[in-house]
C-alpha cells in the first residue's frame, strides 16, 4: 500500500496516541515520543512496524506521540492514519 498524502489520526488526550504519516524517502522511518519511552518505547515501535507490515506499507514516515495509550489503541491509530494516507498502487 502506498502512502500518497499526509494524514493524521488520534488525539493528544490521555490514553490516546496521535499519529502523523506522510510519504517516505524509500523506506519506513518511525519516530516515537512517549511519556513511557523508557519502559515501552521499543514495544511501541515494534507495534507500529507490525501494523505497517500487515498493511504492506514500505515507504512512509510515521510519527507517533503516545499519551499513555494501550498497544491496541496505538495499533488502531496507526492503521487509521495509513488508511487515510493511502493510495492504490
Amino acid at each position, binding site marked *: 500500500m502506498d502512502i500518497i498524502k499526509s494524514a493524521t*489520526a*488520534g488525539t493528544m*488526550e*490521555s*490514553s*490516546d496516541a496521535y499519529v502523523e504519516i506522510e510519504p517516505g524517502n524509500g523506506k519506513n522511518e518511525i519516530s516515537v515520543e512517549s511519556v513511557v519511552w523508557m519502559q515501552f518505547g521499543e514495544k511501541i515501535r515494534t507495534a507500529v512496524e507490525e501494523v505497517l507490515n500487515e498493511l504492506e506499507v514500505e515507504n512512509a514516515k510515521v510519527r507517533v506521540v503516545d499519551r499513555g*495509550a*494501550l*498497544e*491496541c*489503541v496505538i*495499533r*488502531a*491509530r496507526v*492503521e*487509521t492514519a495509513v*488508511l*487515510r494516507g493511502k493510495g492504490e498502487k
Partner: protein
Amino acid sequence: MLRSLLFLPGNNPNMLINAGTLGADAVIFDLEDAVSPDEKDAARILVRNTMKYMNLEACEVIVRINSVDTSFWMEDINALLPYKPLVFLLPKTNCKDDVLKVCGYLSECEKKLEAEEGTAFVMPLIETAQGVENAFDIASCSKRIKALFLGAEDLTADLGSKRTKDGREIEYARSRLVVAARAAGVDVFDTPFTDVNDDEGILDDALLAKNLGFSGKASISPRHVSAINRVFSPSSEEIEYAYEVMMAIKEAKEQGKGAIALRGKMIDAPIVQRAEKTIAMAKALGIRGDENE
C-alpha cells in the same frame, strides 16, 4: 441478564479500555451519535481493536452502528461482526424494512465468514414517531431481534415535544414499546436518564421503567449504573415472597388443594410465573441461592 446498558463513545480510548470495569451488565460501543462523520473510520477501527484485544468478559458488548440511511452501517458490520457483539443496536429504526435490510446483510456476511446463519442479533432503537407506531411490526419481523430499545432524545425532537425529567411526554411511547416487545416475545430497554448529576432522579426514572415492564435501562454515565442495577434486581422482600409463593404451591399440591391463598391473596398462574422469574433472576445475579427450596 441485562439490567444496565452503558453507552461509551466509540472514539474515546480512555472510556473503551475501561469498559469491563464500570459495573454495567452491557456496554454499548457507540459508532453513531458520539462520533463525528470524519472520525467514523477511526472509531470503527478502535472499537474493533478493543473487542479484539481487550478482556471484556465482565460485561456483554453491544455495538451501535450507524443508521441504514447513512453510508457507514455496512462497514460497521463488516469490521465488527467477526468479533461477535451480543447484538447490533440499529438507530433510527422506522419500520420493519429497515431491520430486514440489516438482517439480509448480516446473512450475506455470515456466509462470507462461514459462520452459522442467524447467529448475529439486532436490537432496533426506536426513536421516531414512525418507529413507535410500527413497534410491533419491527419487534416481530425477524428471529434476529433480541429486544426493542427506546431512544427518547431523538423521539421528542421528532415529536416536537420538550424532554423533561418526569418523562410525561414519553409515557405513550414507553407503554407502546413495552406492549409491542412483550407481544413479540422480546425484551425491551428504556432510554437513558440524561441528568448525570441527579442521583435521586435516576432512581425514580429507573423504577418507573421497571414498573412499566422494561427489562432494563440504558445510561450515558457510569455514575447511573449502580442505581439501575439495584432497581432492576429483585429486592430481598420480592425474593422472600417468591419463595413463599413456591412453597405454598408445593404444599397445596401435596394436600390436593386447588385454590390457595397467601398473605390474604389468591395465588394464581401469573403470580407463580412472576415468582419463578424473580427466583431465576436472583439466582442468576447471585443474590440468593436455593437455600429456601
